[in-house]
């Protein structure tokens, strides 16, 4: 089979995998070697549906011994099968990289004969890239469930990010829809990766610590390559099984907390197979996916706790109001806040004020009193924010009663959109602004030279261009 056809098949089979991000790793260039990574990552193109293409995202092979209900590569499907030769794929990665098409490689795979055999093929490709070609670009690999820990370890030292797909939000659903995969098979490598990442960070920090006053210090050589310096992420399919948003968000909060995951991706279930175990619907729950990402965002950047966003009593997110506005509406006693004095944490809770907006306010108010005019310049959605703030004591939300229902009318932002595609009314309107009007988007910092923000920004962008898709 010619390379073009292979590439087509194996990219097509991989496209339902989420998370084409290239962020979280900052590796400078070295003379004579190809490639570097930047913490914020880089999107090199966008698909007709507006998803980011950052990496050469392909499967090693779409041959698969397993039979997951939702997957087009499952063994019971009759599809054209292909597999890359390790060197062939390594060469293709280099060729694409030199043309600035990509930031690197995103490699996952179906199960070819056994998980270990498959992983060895993947490792061979990564080894050629890293060791033979000295490639310093970004690599994200997905482990194959059931791979032995030794191979997971080898792989971890060749990649920037290593992840394990959670696939489904509960054990029961996993048993039903992906019968060959077990919870244990998924959680064990996740734990192993979390521990290895932490340990590798620690030893490297120790080795780098200054231990003498002589200039330069005495450096102990850091022999090993770092283990997955960009950490791990995971994804789960939403809408293929009956779990509620409450369950999903509690689960992802737990993952952030206990396994230090960088990202949890949600992927609205897209029907590709006819299967009695799957919901009989043609609709893709993109709106739900969108609200889940908003909630996830609040967990990671707005210092919200899951219990503030959702509870068991009403376990699904409000389709009409975004979760942050929803919190504000239910806590009117905390508002309005005075922008010139309110603490940063409180500014973050104001609908219409994003992370950047809150940071800008805190900086700008050191030298000037902020009134409406100044505020509007700071990248906040004044139209929304005005109901929840005062500027120098004056309130500009007049004309609307300061009570739940009236304000809810003002803030309602049903997810519009859907002029295209065969599932038109479910098309995601935009990923740019997660909460209407709040600006997160800029790729370059509005204000240069603010080192501590760089990381936040990187994460921000990572989340902004979530390049989600579904499997």
């Amino acid at each position, binding site marked *: 089979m010619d*390379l*073009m056809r292979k*590439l*087509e098949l194996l*990219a*097509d089979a991989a*496209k*339902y995998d989420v998370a084409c991000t290239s962020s979280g790793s900052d590796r*400078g*260039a070295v*003379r*004579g070697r*190809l*490639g*570097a990574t930047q913490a914020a990552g*880089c999107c*090199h*193109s*966008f*698909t*007709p*549906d*507006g*998803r*980011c*293409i950052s990496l050469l*995202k392909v499967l090693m092979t779409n041959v698969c011994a397993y039979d997951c209900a939702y997957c087009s590569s499952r063994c019971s499907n009759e599809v054209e099968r292909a597999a890359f030769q390790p060197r062939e794929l390594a060469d*293709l990665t280099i*060729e*694409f990289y*030199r*043309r*600035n098409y990509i930031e690197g490689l995103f490699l996952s795979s179906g199960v070819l004969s056994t998980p270990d055999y498959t992983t060895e093929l993947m490792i061979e490709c990564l080894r050629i890239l890293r060791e033979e070609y000295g490639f*310093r670009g970004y690599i994200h690999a997905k482990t194959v469930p059931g791979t032995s820990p030794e191979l997971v370890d080898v792989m971890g030292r060749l990649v920037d990010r290593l992840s394990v797909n959670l696939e489904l939000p509960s054990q029961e659903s996993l048993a039903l829809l992906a019968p060959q995969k077990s919870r244990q098979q998924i959680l064990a490598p996740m734990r192993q990766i979390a521990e290895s990442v932490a340990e590798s960070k620690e030893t490297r920090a120790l080795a780098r610590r200054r231990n003498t006053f002589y200039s330069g210090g005495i450096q102990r050589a850091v022999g090993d390559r770092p283990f997955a310096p960009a950490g791990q992420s995971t994804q789960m399919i939403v809408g293929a099984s009956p779990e509620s948003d409450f369950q999903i968000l509690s689960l992802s909060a737990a993952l952030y907390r206990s396994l230090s995951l960088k990202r949890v991706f949600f992927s609205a279930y*897209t029907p590709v197979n006819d299967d009695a175990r799957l919901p009989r619907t043609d609709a*893709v729950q*993109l709106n739900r996916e969108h609200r889940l990402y908003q909630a996830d965002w609040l967990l990671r950047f707005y210092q919200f706790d899951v219990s503030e966003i959702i509870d068991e009593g009403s376990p699904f997110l409000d389709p009409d109001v975004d979760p942050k506005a929803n919190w504000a509406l239910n806590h009117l006693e905390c508002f309005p806040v005075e922008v010139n004095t309110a603490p940063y944490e409180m500014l973050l809770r104001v609908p219409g004020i994003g992370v950047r907006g809150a940071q*800008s306010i805190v*900086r*700008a108010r*050191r*030298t*000037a009193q*902020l009134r409406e005019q100044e505020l509007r*310049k*700071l990248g906040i959605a004044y139209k929304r924010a005005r109901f929840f703030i005062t500027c120098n004591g004056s309130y500009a939300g007049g004309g609307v009663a300061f009570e739940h229902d009236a304000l809810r009318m003002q803030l309602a932002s049903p997810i519009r959109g859907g002029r*295209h*595609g065969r*599932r038109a009314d479910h*098309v*995601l309107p935009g*990923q740019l602004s997660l909460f209407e009007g709040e600006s997160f988007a*800029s*790729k*370059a910092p*509005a*204000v*240069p*030279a603010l080192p501590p923000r760089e990381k936040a920004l990187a994460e921000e962008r990572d989340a902004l261009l979530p390049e989600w*898709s579904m499997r």
Partner: protein
Amino acid sequence: MSSAQAYPLQDVAYLYDGTLEGLLSAVFLAYERHEDPIDVVREDEYEPRLLQSAIPVETDFDRANRVRRGVERACGRAAFTAIVRASTCEGYDTGAIVYRFVRYAMSRPESMRSMPILEELANPAVADLLRLVKHAGNESERMRQFVRFSHLENGVWFARVNPNANVVPLIMGYFAARLNDQPFIIYDEAHHLAGVYDGRSWQLVAGDAVSVPPATDHDRQMQEAWKRFYDALAVDARYNPELRRHFMPVRLWRNLTELEPRAAR
């Protein structure tokens, strides 16, 4: 500076050659002549105003350098970096904004010195400059995303770009680092400027005429592979062209390999 009029003039425009050094020479001139020009404009864009005198500025690297040192001493490196970025922007008032920023930077009250100048967001002289810095930053990022090299028969890697700010100087370092083992040229067809990296260091070459040898056969295959990959990634159910246009502005499409018309397969 060959003006016969007496100065300082009240309503005066300085015309510079469009380079950063020219712009900083203009700033220097304002101090020298004790003038406060209303406009600081590229000479090829100047629109004369009634009763305004126009003074052509001679570009002088040493004078420009003195302005740089002055800014760095008063407000630090970051302030000068911001000026460099801002100066790449198009727009009639770019020169005037940079000029006003330098003026403010050199005359900041003692009481403000403890705070980095770039954090004075509420000051118009700073805010205007930051707006340009942001624009230049965004456009540089677009170039980092969307530059597409092809491999020519003479061994050089070549990319043609059309940014809406003169940002090639801002991105050369980035590409020269990560692609340091491949000689390349990034040619900005909008600003007629080429960044040339020879495998060791890079420099800028101004010029209109570029003759580009054809790409290698292998390169054409790789372009084709990239297009196939791009096409394979589309998910019908999510088709959303507005979103794509938002992230990847149409004005840049003509230099994007993956959006070229497809040959019949």
